């Protein structure tokens, strides 16, 4: 790949990330507004569409403040440590049969490795701000993320076993066609339990309500991002929306057939639109949960993860491995 090609791909990733950020902020406000029986932004531009644009301008032009007692170096680095992994996580996404940043046979692992770096930036921001609220928020966020990473990874194992690959392109390709003549071969149908675990864990990984005790607004204001303003805060905010997109996109690839339409062959030009539509449907469901459920306590969340989600997902991995191994034997015995 030429240097220009690499640069072009990075530019495309960045544009996608920025556009996604602007769209998701508007979508979040409108969806949450509807769920709360409010209207949401409606004054700036038609349907309030320009509200987010104005917010971006505000963030870009705000003064860059740093508390006097903060740890200067760490305080300045932390937003980038949160932003960069989230940006890099676009690399393994597969938008169509030929449309992806690169082909990696360990693409799925790359996505999970990158998301596992997010808690470090959060801890760095929380500690360096030298504020009790920031530190508590940072510790909560990191504790939750490191716990929920385990069921997130384990739940991905079911689809990986079915596809026999860690390459997202091959996982998506394995979901083409139909079962019994009419059921789309989406892994969500046999892997429904894994999908439920994935949905819960990804909601926690992206720190959205009902699992947002890291930035519980009523008690911690904005948690680890408390002391940040201007574009430093903007980077953290963008990373949060970008992470939402990424977990939804990975969920789409693992469980809902990625860029493929059910029943009919997908033309190459339509594939990215199908993928984006599925991803945004996933994001909408996440926002729906966000708007309807009250917040859990942090100890409830942690014990739920370690005592329920992890055992369930481990058991499911064992069960599914046995099913997949024994299926050919049983099928042969039945047909004989």
């Amino acid at each position, binding site marked *: 790949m030429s240097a220009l090609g690499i640069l072009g791909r990075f530019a495309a990733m960045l544009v996608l990330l920025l556009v996604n950020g602007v769209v998701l902020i508007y979508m979040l406000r409108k969806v949450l507004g509807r769920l709360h029986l409010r209207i949401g932004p409606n004054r700036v531009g038609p349907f309030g569409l320009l509200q987010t644009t104005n917010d971006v301008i505000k963030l870009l032009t705000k003064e860059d403040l740093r508390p006097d007692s903060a740890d200067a170096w760490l305080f300045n680095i932390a937003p980038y440590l949160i932003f960069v992994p989230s940006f890099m996580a676009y690399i393994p996404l597969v938008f169509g049969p030929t449309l992806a940043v690169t082909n990696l046979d360990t693409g799925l692992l790359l996505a999970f490795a990158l998301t596992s770096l997010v808690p*470090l930036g959060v801890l760095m921001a929380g*500690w360096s701000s030298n504020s009790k609220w920031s530190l508590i928020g940072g510790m909560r966020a990191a504790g939750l993320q490191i716990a929920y990473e385990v069921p997130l990874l384990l739940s991905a194992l079911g689809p990986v076993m079915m596809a026999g690959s860690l390459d997202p392109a091959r996982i998506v390709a394995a979901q083409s066609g139909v079962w019994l003549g009419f059921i789309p071969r989406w892994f969500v149908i046999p892997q429904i339990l894994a999908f439920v675990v994935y949905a819960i864990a990804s909601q926690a990984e992206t720190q959205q309500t009902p699992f947002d005790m890291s930035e519980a607004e009523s008690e911690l204001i904005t948690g680890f991002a408390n002391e940040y303003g201007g574009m430093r805060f903007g980077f953290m905010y963008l990373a949060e929306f970008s992470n939402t997109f990424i977990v939804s996109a990975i969920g789409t690839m693992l469980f809902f057939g990625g860029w493929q339409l059910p029943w009919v062959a997908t033309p190459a030009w339509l594939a990215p639109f199908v993928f984006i539509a599925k991803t945004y449907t996933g994001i909408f469901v996440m926002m729906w949960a966000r708007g309807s459920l009250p917040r859990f306590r942090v100890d409830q969340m942690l014990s739920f993860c370690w005592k329920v989600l992890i055992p369930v997902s481990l058991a499911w991995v064992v069960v599914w491995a046995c099913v997949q191994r024994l299926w050919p034997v049983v099928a042969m015995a039945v047909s004989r």
Partner: protein
Amino acid sequence: MPESVAAVPFIVLAALAVGGAAMVILSRNVVHAAFWLLEVMMAVAGLFMLLSAGFLALVQMMVYAGAVSVLVLFTVMLTLRRREDAERPLDLSWSAGLIALGVFVAVGAAVVSFVPPAVMAPVRTPGVTEFGTQLFTQRALPFEIASVVLLIALVGAVWWAGGEDR
């Protein structure tokens, strides 16, 4: 697979790894030291990547940078009673110096007398499939022993933290 790795990225990554390791020891602030440790782990992941060991690089990133570093930071932050305690005083006592010197001599001797094993570079970089097949067929026993050792450590840690009613 090329006979040697690209020089410039190797020098940069090696300098980052060694320099970061020095900073882990030299920085007086334990939290800074923990973040330098993270930097070392990322640089080592980069070195793996340079050797076309993509899978190892990702595992290094996920396990060491993503999990071990977070645990180290957690322990450090939870055990600090006050923020000022993060700054450690410099220990200039004779005993500390002697231990440091002893370790230095031992490690130095090991490095000087080390002869790299003559291994033929493989013609083609093995992918994650070959790696997995190897791990679960020919190397299954060491793999299982490693997992049992980790399990014992886990059970031990839980027992240790169990408190009075264990």
